[in-house]
Every structure is written in C-alpha cells, then in structure tokens.
C-alpha cells in the first residue's frame, strides 16, 4: 500500500512517516501544497494523509484539485483546526475522513485501514477463501486454523492484491505500490516475494496471468 503524507510540520511529519513505514506502508512525504498537487497529478496512491494548513497552497485546494481530476483516492484529513465549519467543509469537498491533532497513532492507522478497505469495496474486515483467512488488522493469515508468518513486503503484496480480488496487477503496478521514492528496488524483488507467498499460502491463492501479472481469486460469497 502506498500512501502520500502531506504535512508541513517537520516533527510531526518525520514521526508519522516512521510509524507508517514501520506498519508496512510505502510512504512518500511532501511538505507543501504545491508539491502535493504536483505529486498527486503524476503518481497514484492508495490513500492521502492530508494536513490542511499548508504553505503555498491550502490543503483544501489540494483536495479540490484532486477531486476535480475525478481522482477517487481516499483522503484522510489531519489538522489541528477543529472548528466545525472546517470539518464540514473538508468532508463536503471530498475528504473521506477527518482526524484532529493531536491524535493517537492507533486511531490514525485504524482509520487508514478502514478507508483502504472501503475503497476496495469490502465492508467486512477479513478476507476468506478456500480455507484461508486473512485479517488485515492483526496481519494474521490462517490456513486451516494454522498461523502463517509473512515478511513485511510479502504482506504488502498480499494486501495490495486483496484490495481488489480478481483484478490482475502487473509487476510494475505492484512495485509502484510497494516502494516509496527513497526505496531501492531490485529488478526481481516482486517475483521473489510472490514466490515466497505462493509457497506459504499455496499456489492457488496467487494466480499468475502470464505476460500480464498476478491476482487473487474473489472471496467466496
């Protein structure tokens, strides 16, 4: 899952960046509204954590531009301004959620998970298919009741495929969602993690569409 963090406060920014990365997200951090606008216009993200009081361009303007482009990326506003009218305005302009600083990091993470889950069209928090049970909150994967441990990147690929079951994702797309700007990507990293996942979960779970990419079957109804 790749997130864009838009935050001008260096202390808050570096802490949130580390905490999100520690949670397995690929995160890019931009510090002003202009760069945020530019980044969102060129790169697709699974979610945007957006501060409102930004230099150069206000957070609401960034949000407005994003929605003008018909971009449906979930946006979570974080701000220290708690005036009701501002919260209402943010949500009305197309934000998906709103969290007031100072917040608990657990709450931020939970809201991010909920937004990503909703964006993938799922209401139920867990994914189940052919005896396999995946819980994104606890990061637990149970195969016939047996816990399976995954590497952080393996989990990230699985989560990405789980976001849209049945949809084929190319290696390039997966790389894009897995790594932020600063990460080094080795040429066959995705294949290595896919291989690991298939070994742990069973080859039927991660299906290879030759020449196109990978997908995970739709959950059983």
């Amino acid at each position, binding site marked *: 899952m790749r997130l864009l963090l838009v935050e*001008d*406060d*260096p*202390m*808050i920014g*570096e*802490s*949130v960046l*580390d*905490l999100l990365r*520690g949670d397995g997200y690929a995160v890019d951090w931009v*510090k*002003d509204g202009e760069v945020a606008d530019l980044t969102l216009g060129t790169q697709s993200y699974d979610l945007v954590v957006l501060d409102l*009081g930004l*230099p*150069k361009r206000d957070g609401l303007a960034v949000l407005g531009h994003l929605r003008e482009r018909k971009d449906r990326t979930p946006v979570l506003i974080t*701000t*220290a*301004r*708690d*005036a009701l009218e501002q919260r209402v305005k943010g949500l009305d302009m197309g934000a998906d959620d709103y969290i*007031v*600083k*100072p*917040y*608990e*990091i657990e709450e931020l993470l939970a809201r991010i998970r909920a937004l990503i889950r909703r964006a993938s069209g799922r209401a139920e928090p867990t994914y189940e298919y052919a005896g396999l049970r995946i819980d994104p909150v606890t990061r637990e994967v149970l195969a016939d009741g047996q816990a399976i441990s995954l590497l952080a990147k393996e989990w990230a690929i699985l989560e990405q495929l789980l976001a849209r079951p049945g949809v084929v994702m190319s290696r390039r797309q997966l790389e894009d969602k897995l790594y932020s700007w600063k990460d080094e990507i080795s040429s066959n990293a995705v294949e290595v993690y896919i291989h690991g996942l298939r070994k742990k979960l069973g080859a039927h779970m991660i299906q290879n569409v030759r020449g196109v990419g990978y997908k995970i079957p739709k959950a059983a109804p």
Partner: protein
Amino acid sequence: MTGTVSHSLRTRLLYLLFGSVVLTTGIQAFVAYRTSLDETNEIFDYQMEQMALSLRPGLPEGGYPSTAFHDEANESFEFIVQVRTADGRSIFQSTPSTELPADAAPGLSGFDARGTTYKLYSLRTGTQLIQVAQDRAARRGMARKLALKTVSPVVVMVPLLLFLVWWVVSASLAPAERVRRQLASRRADELAEVSEEGLPAEIHPLVHELNLLFQRVRGAFDAQKNFIADAAHELRSPLAAIKLQAEGLRRATDAPARELAIQRLSAGIERATRMVEQLLMLARQQAAPRDPEPTEPVSLALLVQTIIGDLWAAANARHIDIGLADADPVVVAGHRDALNILIRNLLDNAIKYTPDGGTVNVAVRTSGAAVQLTVEDSGPGVPPEERERIFDRFYRGSGPQLNRTGSGLGLAIVKTIAEMHAASLTLGQSPSLGGLQISLQFPAYEKPTRLAR
C-alpha cells in the same frame, strides 16, 4: 421641577413645553380678564352718564309720587336714579329707601349706603341735580361674569395644546426610541450596524459613529476569534508531535532507533516549551498595567552586546557571523527587561532564517535626535507583500526557507514591545546582505517619563 433634572430628552421637552404653554396661557388669561373688567367698568360708567343725560330736559317741579311703585321686594334694582331741584328738594327717587347724597361733586364719585358701596354719577343742569348710582358689588359681579366668558375659550384650549405638544414631541423622537429599542434587544455579541434610515439630522451622526464603532469592535472581535483558532492550532501541533514522538519511542526496537526517538522527543518537548514561554511572554507584555512603571535610561548598544554574547554560540554552531556593526553610545527611555526580550527575539529570528555560513549585522546609530536599531541578515528576506503580516501572531513566512518549528510569536512580541516604547518598526531589504532588514526607530531620550501605551 426641583431635584434632579431628567436626562430624557423627551421628558425634558415635554416638561419645558408644558410649562411654557401653561405659563403663557395663564398670562394671556389674566390680561384678558383684567382688560375685560376695565372695559366693562367703562361701559357701565358710560351707561350711567347716558342715563343722567337722558333726564336733562328736566322733570316737572311737582315731581312724581314714588310710592306708586314702591315695592320693597324689588329694591334690588341695579341702578338708582334721583332728581332734585336746585334748592335740594327731591322730585324723583327710583328707590325710596336709598337717598343719594345731594352734596356729591359733579361727575363720577362714590358713596356708602345700606352696607354697600355705590358708584355715583351726578349731573347738574341749570335747575336740577340728576344723579344715577349703581351698586359696585353688582357691577363687579357682572363685569366678572363677562370677563370670565372672554377668558374661558383660552383655558379650554390648554389641554388641546398640551396634547398637540405631547404628540409632536413623541413623534419627533420616535426614531431615537426605535434605535434605542434595536440596541436594547441585542445579545452581547451582536455587532451588526443599526439602520440609519429615516433618522433626523440631529441623531444621524451619532448613530453613524455608533455604527463605525460597531465595525471596529467587530474587527477586534474577529481578530480575537482568529487568534484563539490560531492558538489552538499552534498549541496542538507541538503536542501532536510529542504524542507521535512518544509513540515512536515506544515502538523503537533497537538501541540506535531508541536513541533517535529520544532525541526527537526531547526536541518536541523543547519546542512545546518554547511555544508556551513565548505565549506567556506575549500575554505578559500585552497585559502590562495601564499606568506602567516610569521608564529608565537603557544603553541600547550595551544591551545588544550582551545579547549577541549570549547568542553567539548558537550562531557559531551554524557558522553564522553575527556582529555589532555600529554601536553609538546612546540611551533610550524604556524598560530594560522588555527591550532585552525585543532584541533577543529580533536576533533569534535573524539567526533562524539565515542559512548556515550567513551573516547577521546589528547596528545602533543616532539619526538626528532619534535612535535607530537595525538588524539585517543574509537570509532569503521577506517579499514586500508579506511584510505587513509578519508581525501578526502565528504568522510564518512562505519563503523557501521554511521553518515550521518556531512559535510564530517572536515578531508579534517585538511589535508589542516596540509599540509600548513608541518606537516605529520598518521592514526592508538589507542593501549590503540582501536579506531582511528590520529597523526600529526610538524617540529621542528625554527625562524619565511614563511609557506610552
């Protein structure tokens, strides 16, 4: 109207106008009464005279027996007529019981008889003395009756006049009353303008000024509201950082990560502390007593030297060359502590926005009688359109050298203290260093005086 004078314009107008109406009507009635009494008297006198004259052709010497119509019950005739011959013999007497005095002077005179006073007119012809008398009391009664009839319409007009006065005064003051009601029904925070329509010219300027005042108060109100919103934002951000930094520390798994997390947390606490201190400092400066302590002579150059000494280590750590370019030995009238805070904030600010290896120059000069303190740096400067705003509380520049960890209050404090010292602040571009130049012009030093506020 003794005691306190009413402050209501309407009450006063009504009192005064009512008083005037009653007084003038009273005088008018009195004069009319006196005049008609006098005139009635004249008419009666004329009547008696004419009556006497009509008898002038004379009566027969034998006279008339007055007993023929002697009737005691009709004795109350108003007029009494008596005619005598030249030798004093009465030949006609209208009222036998009342003898008119034969020795009365010709013309108008008076006499007493039967317990009352009579007015008498005597006319002497060649052979006879003709006399006509009238009871003064009866005459007065009739005269009074006539006079009252003349006065009564005036008295009846008084209530009508009073009503008209009341109506005109009330109607004229109705707009003022409307404004009063509009104001009275307001909530404390309702600061919209009062309608200026249909107000008389006397009240209009007052209401207009009131509306201007409302505008100013509303401006101050909004500024205060914005300040609170800003303060909430600015106080929450450092706290949010600390919370996240603490969480980072909790999640740090190895020693280097923990070390980094602790460093970050300390920096966060440092920042929050600074913010609180700056806020308190600003509040203290702004809440200084209305009638502050007298000023003392403060040597600016000496003060600047001390502060540069304090800040040198911090500047040096970033290879910033900070120094005193000119140091004229002058004093200004001021508060040493406040001026210390002012200069420290100015220099802190200059150091903060100057890139590593840059320069900060401070100068104290006398220009004419005034004293000028100038701080200039080799930082990015402030674009002219932002210069007005950088003294606002919580305002931070949008230049490339973003520093979001300051309190945003330093220059607001500088401005408050400068205003307290009647010093003017000017911003510009440093001609020698290219960055921001802040100049503070203090008024010439005079004898210790009270601080302007």
